[in-house]
């Protein structure tokens, strides 16, 4: 059997977009190791399905959907996958910057809410586009976003510049 080699177009896609996919996966998971695993897995699946995927208009969107789906369904997918023994502890810093506080608060959101927030405020997708990425209804995107922002407001102190 011939040794598999990346088609030129796929190789170019991987070179150009893998770092952005890593940033997206990190925003989604708040875990750099998991982010790398998800991106590796998604790009391998994209490569295996390249003949079909390349006909789509938005290859990167396909990869993002795979990343998102794998993340949201980790507990339900029928895979031979071992979960880590312990979740990483969130260190409590005596004095955190505003960005650190927001990042920690984001990291503590339930996965579906975090995914909605990432879709809306990292990818800047519309509600309909976010629903397409997350495989849910627009109503679900709205409710998850609403709940996420409500939780964030409750957890974060108002900034000196203004109210939330």
């Amino acid at each position, binding site marked *: 059997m011939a040794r*598999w080699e990346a088609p030129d177009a796929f190789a170019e896609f991987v*070179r150009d977009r893998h*770092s952005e996919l*890593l940033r997206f996966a990190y925003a989604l998971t708040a875990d750099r190791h998991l*982010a790398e695993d998800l991106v590796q897995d998604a790009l391998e699946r994209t490569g295996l*399905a390249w003949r079909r995927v390349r006909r789509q208009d938005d290859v990167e969107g396909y990869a993002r959907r795979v990343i998102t789906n794998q993340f949201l369904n980790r507990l339900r997918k*029928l895979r031979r996958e071992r979960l880590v023994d312990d*979740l990483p502890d969130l260190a409590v810093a005596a004095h955190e910057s505003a960005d650190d506080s927001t990042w920690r608060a984001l990291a503590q959101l339930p996965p579906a809410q975090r995914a909605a927030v990432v879709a809306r405020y*990292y990818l800047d997708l519309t509600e309909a586009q976010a629903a397409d990425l997350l495989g849910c209804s627009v109503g679900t995107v709205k409710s998850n976003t609403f709940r996420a922002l409500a939780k964030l407001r409750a957890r974060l102190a108002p900034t000196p510049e203004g109210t939330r």
Partner: protein
Amino acid sequence: MTIEDDVRRTLHSPAGAPDAWPDPVRRIEAGIRRRRRERRQLAALAVVAIAVLLTPVVVWVGSPGQGASGPADNDTAPGIVPYLDRTVAAPTYFARNDPRPTKRPCQGEDFGAGEDGPNPLWGDDEPLATTPNPGTEVRQSALINSRRGECTLSGSAKLRGTDPVTGQSVMLSANAGTSIDGGIKLYPATIANQPAQIDIVTATSCRAGTPYRDVELVFADRAYPVPWLIVSPGCAIHIGDWYSLPQFVNVPLEASIDAPATVHRGETLRYSVTLLNSMGMTPELDPCPVYKQSLATTTQWMQLNCVLRRLPAHTPVTFQMQLPVPADAPLGRTKLEWIVVFSSGQVRYASEDTNGATVEILE
């Protein structure tokens, strides 16, 4: 600054994001080669197993001059196989990894922190798209991480909440131990670094009225918050038994769904599934495999149209599919799922990367 601006700024400049990979193409190539190697090894084992089982039949059935991988007379690939309207009973055998043997009963100390903090339980705010009965909702709660080695969760659990009128903590009346949603589940749930799950079915009317506060699931001598569950006094609750999901064995086959984005209630959803024997190792379609198609509340087990005795290697074959959408199907986006089951018990989900295809049900 609004919270939205703060979130946007934070997400776009997170400290600790992974660095770009030094040689991403080589890294992905290596991963793909490993997957292909694993598939070949698995398929080779399957072929050996099938050959051993079928050797007496092959001696009688095989015709001289026909290579082992050559096509049979009726193996011409038309490219598109028409839909066969034939329902079948759900298969009773699925090849899966051996279930974990029953271990000592789990206790509260066994459960590590969950994804959201100290609560080891995890659940979705949104119910499952499919429910066993109209007017009900099924929410799954999952439990991960056994800290002290393997343990077994058996039986059901109880619910406790604070009555909105009296302010008293009360045990909520529920039918326990009901087998919910069918499906393929392993009872009891032996867990160690894999999730145990429990299904809770409530009437949709449970969301009306003033709900109980601080609802908790009580099991393994502890109580754990379930904030995603909204129940009010008087509503019907069914709590299933703890289970774990079996690990299926995949058949060496690629499967992808091509479906329209929308369908109207009362219409027939016409879609297709393309199967690709990418490794040349897919077992023959004899006995003919069955498949399950599901969309929202509709689930059907059907016979695949096995006009071909085998899927030709490296050539996609598209099977036309139809699924009637009831006039009272729930509106909105849902997942079209398709899974084929071979007589060996091996399975393949179509479009597994995206959990099927998203279809919106319209009025």
